[in-house]
């Protein structure tokens, strides 16, 4: 779909140095919206979670959600930010049907939190990402453009607007430009969002479901010739809505921009859209003809002045943050930092931790999440956390294996059922009849049949060539379609032949 010329990624780095930056929007998980009492539940019938305030009806006024302010401050504290002692909301004025008031209530030059940082690790190396600001605003409604090929407003027959999302509290976390990551820039971008997501989960401020749009990233990318004192012109890629896409978007923009710069073509400072299907970006509106948002302090809201004592208490009450948790877990689980890094990169720390908490051994939990489950996520092109299986279910699966109810092969079949929505592991084992056969009549019959059906092999075993017994075990496993326990089968064969 994209006709952009691209430079090979490794070649980009021989000539250019990337600088990246990320703006991350997080929908908070508060029960009610930012400025009214409407529900924030995802997936309601369009326009059923609205009121005069979030519809921006004439005369309506906002009242700030205290829980959202608290969540924002906690995010700021977790990122080591300075918390403002006094700040105001501002109006960002522009016309678009998904903002019902004709302006978005946001924060401008007085954000709640400033000057923080987040350390992320890629391949054993730590990169410090400076946080410029964390501020609070309201989400927009959602447009649905009907008809036309692109799903965009241009060419559509008509457009529908759902204001259920309008007014949901949205926290924007903006990094300072991140230079110096070189070839690791795409991975640093991904690692940053991954770590940020872990922090948000630990704080419990958002469900951070990327597929539901709880967390949305805009990725800024620019290239400068190696050795240049100035940074290049950046593009802002919007709609980057999965961890994998963050990495792909940076990679693609680096390759695209390098091709332009090689041809002495100026990079336009513009907004670009990311396409999940092709991994490419395409131009949106150009920032060089950008609207003047005419920011000014929101006169309908009073200033926010967080009490120092309260902020101190919020700081003291922060939960254990992911980095500290990882350090502790490495020790508790007895694993090397490198393996912990794999878990982090796979987005599996929380999942493994929760699986252990649900009763599995650390080794089993790691084995499942980094092995079978990682493979399935990869095949499906989704993140681990997006798989339709919970840590508790994985722990249950592990428990069934260690109890001998099923073996590893049956466990994979049970997992198939869980992922297919057939219920929990025990339920699937029951409904699919996956339990291991004990020394039942069925197994005795199968063992006897294997000996009868393979007289030559049986003779060899009797003659002392014990290793030949494997072929007989295989035959039994085949007749029982994997439901037998190999060790049991082997023992039974030995009892009969040796």
């Amino acid at each position, binding site marked *: 779909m994209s006709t952009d010329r691209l430079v090979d990624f490794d070649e980009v780095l021989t000539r250019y140095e990337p600088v990246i930056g990320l703006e991350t929007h997080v929908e908070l998980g508060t029960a009610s919206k930012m400025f009214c009492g409407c529900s924030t539940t995802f997936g309601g019938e369009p326009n059923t979670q609205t009121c*005069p305030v979030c519809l921006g009806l004439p005369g309506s*006024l906002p009242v700030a959600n205290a829980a959202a302010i608290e969540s924002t401050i906690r995010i700021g504290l977790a990122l080591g930010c300075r918390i403002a002692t006094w700040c105001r909301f501002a109006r960002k004025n522009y*016309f678009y049907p998904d903002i019902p*008031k*004709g302006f978005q209530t946001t924060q401008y030059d007085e954000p709640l939190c400033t000057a923080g940082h987040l350390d992320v690790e890629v391949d054993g190396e730590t990169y410090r990402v400076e946080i410029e600001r964390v501020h609070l605003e309201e989400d927009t409604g959602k447009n649905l453009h009907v008809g036309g090929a692109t799903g965009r*407003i241009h060419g559509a027959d008509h457009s529908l607007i759902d204001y259920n999302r309008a007014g949901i509290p949205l926290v924007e976390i903006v990094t300072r430009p991140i230079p110096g990551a070189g070839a690791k820039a795409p991975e640093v971008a991904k690692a940053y969002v991954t770590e940020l997501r872990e922090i948000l989960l630990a704080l419990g401020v958002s469900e951070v479901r990327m597929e539901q749009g709880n967390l949305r990233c805009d990725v800024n990318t620019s290239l400068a010739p190696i050795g240049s004192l100035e940074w290049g012109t950046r593009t802002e890629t919007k709609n980057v809505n999965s961890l994998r896409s963050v990495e792909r978007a940076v990679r693609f923009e680096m390759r695209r921009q390098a091709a332009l710069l090689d041809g002495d073509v100026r990079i336009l400072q513009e907004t670009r859209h990311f396409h999940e299907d092709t991994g490419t970006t395409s131009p949106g509106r150009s920032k060089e003809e950008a609207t003047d948002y005419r920011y*000014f302090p929101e006169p309908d809201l009073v200033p926010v002045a967080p009490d120092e004592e309260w902020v101190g208490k919020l700081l003291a009450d922060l939960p254990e943050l992911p980095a500290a948790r990882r350090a502790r877990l490495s020790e508790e689980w007895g694993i090397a930092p490198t393996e912990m890094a794999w878990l982090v990169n796979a987005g599996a720390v929380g999942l493994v931790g929760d699986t252990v908490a649900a009763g599995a051994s650390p080794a089993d939990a790691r084995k499942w999440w980094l092995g079978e489950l990682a493979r399935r996520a990869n095949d499906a092109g989704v993140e681990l956390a997006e798989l339709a299986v919970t840590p508790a279910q994985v722990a249950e699966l592990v428990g069934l294996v260690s109890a001998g109810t099923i073996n590893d092969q049956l466990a994979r079949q049970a997992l198939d059922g869980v992922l297919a929505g057939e219920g929990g592991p025990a339920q699937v084992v029951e409904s699919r009849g996956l339990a291991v056969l004990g020394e039942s009549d069925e197994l005795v019959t199968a063992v006897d049949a294997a000996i009868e059906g393979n007289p030559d092999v049986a003779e060899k075993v009797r003659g002392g060539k014990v290793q030949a017994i494997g072929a007989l075990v295989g035959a039994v496993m085949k007749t029982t379609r994997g439901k037998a326990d190999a060790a049991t089968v082997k023992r039974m064969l030995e009892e009969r032949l040796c």
Partner: protein
Amino acid sequence: MSIPVSTDVTSMTVDQIQAALADGATAVDITQAYLDRIASADGELGAYLHVDPEAAVAVADAIDAAGTRGTGLNGVPVALKDVVVTEGVPTTSGSRILEGWRPPYDATVAARLKAAGTVLLGKTNMDEFAMGSSTENSAYRITRNPWDPDRIPGGSSGGSSAAVAAGLAPWAIGTDTGGSIRQPAALTGLVGHKPTYGSVSRYGLIAFSSSLDQAGPMARTVLDAALLHEAIGGHDALDSTSIDAPVPVLAECARRGAAGDLSGIRVGVVRELGGEGHTDGYEDGVLSRVAEATALLEGMGAEVRVVSCPAFDLALAAYYLIAPSEASSNLARFDGVRYGLRVGDDGSRDLDEVMALTREQGFGAEVKRRIILGTYALSSGYYEAYYGQAQKVRTLISRDFSAAFADVDVLVSPTTPTVAFPLGARTGDPLAMYAADLCTLPASLAGLPAISVPCGLSEGLPVGLQIMAPALADDRCYQVAAALEAAQDDARGHRFLDQLSRRAATPEGAA
């Protein structure tokens, strides 16, 4: 005091209506009297944009049936400026862009009056989005001044002022951003009070300038104004800028003030508002009535002195940056997407064109002028020079007030520099129109309470005295205004507005 009690319901004060209701008059009778008067007189007067007689009678009937009439405000009719959002009742803010809109909710002011058992007579005319000083900017109709039908009734609450002065409502709600309650009250011989910013909920007032807008009472007497203010005032959780303080005791202050003892009260006459060296644009008749009123206050024991508030000279310039700036943002929601007018949506135009056409045809000239002014003032590169500077002036004005209130209890000035001017006299000259708010703007910018109370006639037209007080000291406004009103009524032998009904009773002005 021996003021004769009128037998004509529509010239009664509200405390007289309350007495009549307690005495056995029905809410339906009272309501019907006003509806009849509206039916006979409003075609010419133009005070109302929407009247639903059946609905009003139904409400009155329910109150009669409930047996609550005669207690509190039960059964007392009221009119609301059309900027107040009313559930199921058309609300236009005087603009074509909201034609036909029936809101799904009630403003807090409307809800409180409903809960108090008042009967809504109708919605009154106003300058479009409250932008204007003559009500001539209404998209719908001209409103005439009951004292002289060729003159303006003031604005932007000109429908409310005309309705109350002409007996088409016993009282009414107005809103005041730069003087829109006080100025029309002054020009029609009413008492009008702009409460302390934040003391009456703004929830459901269609916003013009959020940091300035306040709803308040417009009434025939100071006591009535106080009663209406008490009914709508007090904290509202739906308005973040609402002050969390108890509903003020005002009617009692009005009654106390009427006793006429002002000893110990220090009154400051603001030099910059019509005083020495600042009389340009002020009519002599206005200044004379104000001087006489001030002398009357002194005669009741008040200590009068002249005070200077130099920053007041900058109020007009600051106001016409701040109010349009906020308005340009507040009016952005009128884009034809969700409610009200939509123009040009015929499938041939894109979204931006439909929005632009809707706003082009939906807004009047003055509204467009202010949107453009405000958009410019907030623009990147101009913000500091205009909006930023204007906010600094606002601070200076507040400081002048603080300094003055260190020495005096209230400040007084004319409410308006002139009496009501003829219809059409200033429509071609926006700056001349803006000058009508010269005296009322300082208190607006500082968020302070200010009342206008009649203080005589000049050339046969009403003159108002403005009394300003520190934040949350609205009671002082009522107390001093009530003293002045009582003294003048005593001297005159009848109420101020009775002059109007007597004159109306003698056609051609022949006596």
